[in-house]
């Protein structure tokens, strides 16, 4: 734990970052230059850099599934990223821990893309992936719309849960989101008779 010395603090509070920088520029700069320190006008991203043995394959698959679920953008083999906030940072830190427990190597980083262009490319790529997921929901809803009331209700509920899952990893909502939400809402707007029957059957009040 000793290696997570004062430098580590830079990420936790702006005050500490300024202090650390002041110390660095006054004494030894440890290879940092003022140019490196100047902040680009882009957001902060959290990066997970990892390596896991090929075998056994189970931990690799588990980790990949978790990363997919979080909606990470892959930058390179074993390098993924998410826009940084308290939740995304924590999630990637836990996955890093898991990778280490599974015998792999992992580290997490906070970084800024050095140009707004790079950031836009990354955000667009992530939005495109989400757009595909939303489009799949819209298509499924369209298919179910032709079915029976019961089928519409059941598919509607399943797709609503799916939308919630997609929403949780949607950091740059694409226009396709609205269409998907509308399609699922339409499926669930069953005729009022059925809804009141379901309510009467489901709620047993003393």
């Amino acid at each position, binding site marked *: *734990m000793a290696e*997570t010395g004062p430098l580590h603090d830079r990420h*936790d*509070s702006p005050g500490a970052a300024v202090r650390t920088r002041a110390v660095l520029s006054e004494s030894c700069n440890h290879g940092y230059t003022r140019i490196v320190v100047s902040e680009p006008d882009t957001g902060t991203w959290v990066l997970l850099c990892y390596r896991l043995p090929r075998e056994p394959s*189970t931990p690799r698959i588990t980790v990949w599934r*978790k990363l997919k679920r979080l909606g990470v953008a892959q930058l390179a083999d074993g390098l993924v990223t998410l826009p940084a906030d308290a*939740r995304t940072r*924590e999630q990637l830190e836990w996955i*890093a*821990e898991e990778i280490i427990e599974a015998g792999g190597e992992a580290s997490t980083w906070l970084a800024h893309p050095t140009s707004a262009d790079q950031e836009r490319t990354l955000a667009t790529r992530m939005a495109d992936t989400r757009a595909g997921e939303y489009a799949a929901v819209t298509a499924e809803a369209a298919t179910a719309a032709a079915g029976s009331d019961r089928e519409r209700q059941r598919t509607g509920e399943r797709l609503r849960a799916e939308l919630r899952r997609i929403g949780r990893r949607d950091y740059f909502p694409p226009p396709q989101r609205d269409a998907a939400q509308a399609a699922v809402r339409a499926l669930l707007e069953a005729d009022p008779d059925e809804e009141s029957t379901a309510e009467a059957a489901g709620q047993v009040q003393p």
Partner: protein
Amino acid sequence: MRWATRSGVHIDRAACAWLIRRFIDPQAQFVFVADPARTPGDATGFDMRGVDLSHHTGPDGAVDCSFETILRRHDLADPVLWRIAEIVHEADVDDERYDAPEAPGLDVILRGMSMTCDDQRIIELTGPIFDGLYEYHRRAMLLGREPA
């Protein structure tokens, strides 16, 4: 006894603090650190990297959140606590291992509180919430159905 965890408390840490104070150490005092390396020497760390009372992967590849780990390490077999563990797990890890419809709501409440309260205050305020959750599920288990 002193207990330390990361600052910026969310569901797992809030639930652990409640669990510790209710079932393990009534006199527990909590310290919040930005960096696990700054944990005071006399404090037991939980829910942070590099300590035992934290997330762990089981032999079946499933991950336990810190709340579940504390239950295991302290041999707390109370089924009501394990029901709460399912809720905390889903609110924290969100891997659909358990069916816990309370989880998304609790997650949002805690995320919102992290915007309006400091860590000590969150621990204070969430204590009665977990007390209520415990009582609700205790009665539900005794009755075999939803209470009141």
